[in-house]
């Protein structure tokens, strides 16, 4: 590619033609603040925070939008630039409610940080403030437009990355607000609850519904037996909330923290990820052997994805695996097998899960998710709520020793860990399905083709019975949509498809710690760092097949019989139905 030479604050730099000024500056360690820009998602150039001076240009230039030219001289920190940025911030603050003390994003707010850096300490402009009612119509998130700065990052994520388009910018001028068609609340739109908008929001205009009080109430109730289970992705995310570098695995400390909170049992949802593979793998083998079965079969672990297919492709729901997600299997096993084995009344059991996911809050209240007669899972909180809970209880993760999950449900195979990253369910399933059909365990375990961050990945596996299983993996719903269109037009050649609603999979779920755009826009890929932590765990593990997990063997021997048994179907499987939304 053609190279371009320029100077940023007098420092020479050479970059590819077409590079944004912002990125060229970063290359020589010059940071330019942004608000509306989100790498690979949106650069409308609407907020004007990233303006710079370009020698010879009449006006200030938006560096997130403008690209480099040969011989360009860029100045990012002149008094003119700084004054412009400060005015921009003051104007944004002029109609912002500025209730920072009680804001969920306080100390992690991009606007607050910039206001501090630029010394916006007084109301220079007192604008007309809109008073919007909160949209808390749904069980997973709240929109507070009084804090919204109209950067439209949430809109871009919803539209381009997820292809859901539940929200957009409506009206004009001072009346502009982010909302839905005809002012409908979010629960009446096609919103799938993925929560990616929350992660895109630079301020506190979008945040998860907080269920931490419910958790503490259950723990403090002496009549309740409170069990907690954690998803694979939580342990490689929660550390960030306590200052650990992105992608640090803090499983041991996390388990200790959960015990200190007062849970009666601390288990790992990994175990039921293994169980999911046993059931889903069996279902796949059955479908492969049945000429009339619906293929491709599609995974059903991601509740954002389930909401999406039920809303946008209801005619394809027969392709979904009937397996409950690992979270729901976890709750179901707790209130049936575990309750029976240890003689606990399931009515007294409260199952809490900690998930990287906001859509899980919609999953726990779905139909056919109460195997024991009581809801499989009672309360689910996100990684962020978990961090909030720990901080409120003055539990500092950094000061804790490591400890291990409780037996017997504590053990998961490392294949179960892989559920946290895109391609992980597929890899775990292929290991078990191929080993089952071949009658012996695979020697080569790593399915590198289904790893990584390409939007749609494909692979094929030749089995000993002569069948070649063709699989595809998609993450983010715009990619899922492409595969659904293939199925609709009959051009889909796969037997098995894994879909995770969030870009990068659960490690980047809508409930994970929020990473500021200054990092998202740099060369750091949060998704890859968190996923690597999971793959490293797998590499070092002794049990790398779901079917070799001793807990799984016990479960089938003592309770379920075999995968796909009548009992397994009653407790571990579910159903789907079309959702009619705007």
């Amino acid at each position, binding site marked *: 590619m053609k190279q371009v030479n320029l100077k940023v604050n007098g420092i020479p730099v050479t970059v590819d033609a077409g590079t944004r000024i912002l990125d060229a500056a970063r290359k020589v360690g010059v940071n330019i603040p942004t608000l509306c820009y989100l790498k690979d998602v949106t650069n409308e150039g609407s907020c004007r925070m990233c303006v710079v001076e370009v020698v010879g240009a009449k006006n200030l230039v938006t560096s997130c939008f403008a690209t480099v030219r040969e011989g360009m001289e860029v100045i990012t920190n002149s008094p003119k630039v700084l004054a412009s940025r400060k005015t921009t911030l003051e104007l944004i603050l002029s109609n912002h409610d500025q209730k920072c003390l009680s804001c969920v994003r306080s100390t992690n707010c991009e606007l607050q940080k910039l206001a501090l850096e630029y010394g916006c300490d007084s109301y220079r402009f007192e604008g007309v403030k809109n008073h919007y009612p909160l949209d808390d119509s749904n069980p997973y998130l709240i929109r507070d437009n009084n804090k919204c700065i109209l950067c439209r990052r949430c809109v871009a994520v919803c539209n381009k990355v997820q292809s859901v388009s539940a*929200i957009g910018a*409506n009206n004009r001028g001072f009346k502009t607000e982010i909302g839905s068609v*005809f002012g409908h609340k979010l629960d009446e*739109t096609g919103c799938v609850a993925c929560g990616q908008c929350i992660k895109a929001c630079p301020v506190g205009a979008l945040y998860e519904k907080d269920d931490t009080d419910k958790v503490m109430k259950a723990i403090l109730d002496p009549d309740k037996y409170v069990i907690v289970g954690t998803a694979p992705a939580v342990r490689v995310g929660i550390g960030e909330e306590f200052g650990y570098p992105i992608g640090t695995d803090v499983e041991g400390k996390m388990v200790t923290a959960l015990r200190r909170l007062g849970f009666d049992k601390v288990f790992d949802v990994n175990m039921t990820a293994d169980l999911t593979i046993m059931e889903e793998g069996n279902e796949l083998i059955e479908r492969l052997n049945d000429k009339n079965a619906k293929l491709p079969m599609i995974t059903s672990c991601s509740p954002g994805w389930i909401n999406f297919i039920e809303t946008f492709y209801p005619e394809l729901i027969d392709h979904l695996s009937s397996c409950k997600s690992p979270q729901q299997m976890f709750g179901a096993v707790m209130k049936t097998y575990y309750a029976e084995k240890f003689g606990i009344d399931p009515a007294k059991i409260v199952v809490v899960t900690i998930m990287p996911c906001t859509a899980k809050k919609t999953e726990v209240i779905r139909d056919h998710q109460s195997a024991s007669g009581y809801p499989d899972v009672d309360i689910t909180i996100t990684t962020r709520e978990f961090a909030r809970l720990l901080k409120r209880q003055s539990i500092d993760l950094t000061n804790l020793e490591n400890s291990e999950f409780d037996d017997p449900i504590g053990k998961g195979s490392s294949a179960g860990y892989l559920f946290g990253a895109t391609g992980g369910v597929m890899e775990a399933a292929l290991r078990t399905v191929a080993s089952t059909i071949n009658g012996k365990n695979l020697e080569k375990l790593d399915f590198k083709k289904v790893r990584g961050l390409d939007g749609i990945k494909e692979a094929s596996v030749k089995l000993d019975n002569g069948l070649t299983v063709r699989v595809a993996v998609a993450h983010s719903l715009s990619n899922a949509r492409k595969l659904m269109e293939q199925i609709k037009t009959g051009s889909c050649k796969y037997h098995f498809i894994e879909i995770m609603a969030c870009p990068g999979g659960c490690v980047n779920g809508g409930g994970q710690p929020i990473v500021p755009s200054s990092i998202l826009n740099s060369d750091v890929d949060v998704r890859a760092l968190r996923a690597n932590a999971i793959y490293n765990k797998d590499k070092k593990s002794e049990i790398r097949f779901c079917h070799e997990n001793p807990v799984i063997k016990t479960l089938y021997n003592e309770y379920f019989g075999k995968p796909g048994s009548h009992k397994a179907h009653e407790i571990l499987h579910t159903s789907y139905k079309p959702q009619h939304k*705007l």
Partner: protein
Amino acid sequence: MSNQFRETPQQKKQLENVFKELKNVPGSLMKAMQKAQDIYGYLPIEVMQRIAAACNAPVEEVYGIATFYAQFNIEPMGKYKVGICLGTACYVKGSGVILDKVKERLHIEPGHTSEDMKYTLEATRCIGCCGLAPVMTINGEVHGNLVPADLDKIFAKYGD
């Protein structure tokens, strides 16, 4: 508003023809919205949903555009569209008083439609006939050099 939506078979057919005409024309969303408004007089959600499907755009985008531009109505319009020009020349020549009188007469605020669906009142920007200021338009017909006393005669023409 949407539960009131009624259409004639002709309107439905006309809209389908618009979609046929604009099929494969890139960037035709605005055009489709304008033509739909010509047909129905406003853009109810049912029509926006059809436009969205035909133009392969999210319905939220259609709604965002409809609420951004003043040319689009998202509520049904009255039989007669009354526009009072509040451009500089008209305003200086007293169109503010005319607007107040019309508001009293029709019992509606600008941007709204009377309950009997007869009149929709708009306060407009300059409509380009400042020589006749102050000016009022009713369904495109221009009434100029107005004084409040003229209103009785003018509205009598529309059965009021």
